[in-house]
């Protein structure tokens, strides 16, 4: 599975949806994922890829990690996997 598919699988599980229901332009809010769901997703992503995601729930916009859509999350993870491998 590609990084993209693996991230989508994690987000889909959190949203209790099928991966096919997740669109790249969706925001986490669109998918019904709240702040606790977000930190749980980030934890699952860190576990899946053995990376560290620079995300602080107090100031999401200040983090060096863009969570504004599924697309930006995937792009961020692809970059982190490259940097941290």
């Amino acid at each position, binding site marked *: 599975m590609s990084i993209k598919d693996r991230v989508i699988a994690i987000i889909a599980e959190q949203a209790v949806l099928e991966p096919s229901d997740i669109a790249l332009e969706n925001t986490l809010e669109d998918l019904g994922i709240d702040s*606790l769901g977000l*930190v*749980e997703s980030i934890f699952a992503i860190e*576990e899946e890829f053995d990376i*560290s995601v620079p995300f602080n729930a107090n100031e999401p916009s200040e983090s060096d990690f863009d969570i504004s859509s599924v697309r930006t999350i995937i792009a961020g993870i692809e970059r982190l996997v490259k940097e941290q491998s």
Partner: protein
Amino acid sequence: MKRVVITGAGTINALGATVPQTLEAMREGRCGISELEFRDVERLSIRIGGQVKNYDPETRFNRQQLALFDRFTQFTMIAAREAIAQAGLTFTGELAARAGVILGNSGGGMTTLDENYRSVYEDGKNRVHPFVVPKLMNNAAASHLSMEYNLKGPSFTVSTACASSNHAMAQAFQMVHGGITPVMVTGGSESMLCFGGVKAWEGLRVMSRDACRPFSANRNGMVQGEGAAIFVFEEYEHARKRGAEILAEVAGFAMTSDASDIVMPSKQGAARAIQGALRDARVNRDEVGYINAHGTGTAANDKTESAAVADVFGGHADKLMISSTKSMHAHLIGGTGAVELLACIMALRDGIIAPTIGYEEPDPECALDVVPNIARDARVDVALSNAFAFGGLNAVLALRRFS
């Protein structure tokens, strides 16, 4: 002051997954203590406990709930469902705004703590699940219960070791008694049966390796249990108007502090709490037919408790019955008073006194009628429930048969 009655009860513990199952086990004098089953148990010298067996959380809760519910919260939610269903209450509007939940708990999410310490210390992992804190905090159970049932009034968790539940129920009683709210959900829960939890208790060297035998001369210590019991405390007129079934009346309580030793119990502290509960409930000592003892099965507690009862009741001490149901469900620490209140309700409502099982040899220092081994039929008007915690914090509740 308002009269306070109990209109709902629920439990899960080593004796059963409901109140009827638990009371049946108590009537039959069945022992819920068994071999502990969890990871690394072979590294413990104490390997028995009142563990909830044949329990599959996956059949009780969904994935999101399980991510947030430690075992002590799971037990609370199960017991609360039974209690609130029996009470037949739905919390909306004014009632929701006033009703709250006060629970007793001592260890918090011990299993969560244990698993995550193991993960970072033993397995060397460097990250833990984001819900570790909300899962292990002592008030998690009270908070989830308030969310599930829309309880928006005074809500908190009391932590006074082995007296937590009695202190919690005393607070709930006081709130209804004083007219702050017509209904409170209360009780307690505990789940310390994991490697770290039992290892910590082992250190104190007060645990029995084979059985909990309260008041028996050959007693050799306490046995840990787990589970929860939850009750609905309701203002009498509120319950009467809606035709609710009344299980018993909560008549009064008292709490005292020994102010003497962090682990050794004090006769005076216990006696003052018992006396205070009688005074608060306005009952004469000869009206008390049954006491659910703290009765831990340790050398120190049982003789101190017996002496306190003898002091308070004088000649009547030989006429009343006192039993320790910890011999069956073991010691649920912060949840123990709640499970033991069920034995008081059974005595008052059903006229059946739960026995002290495992009783083998009389101890002259515990020369009371401890209802050895076999349950007994008796009409009881007033029952007390004792809890004397480590740290010398005592809480005694007085219940009256509702008629």
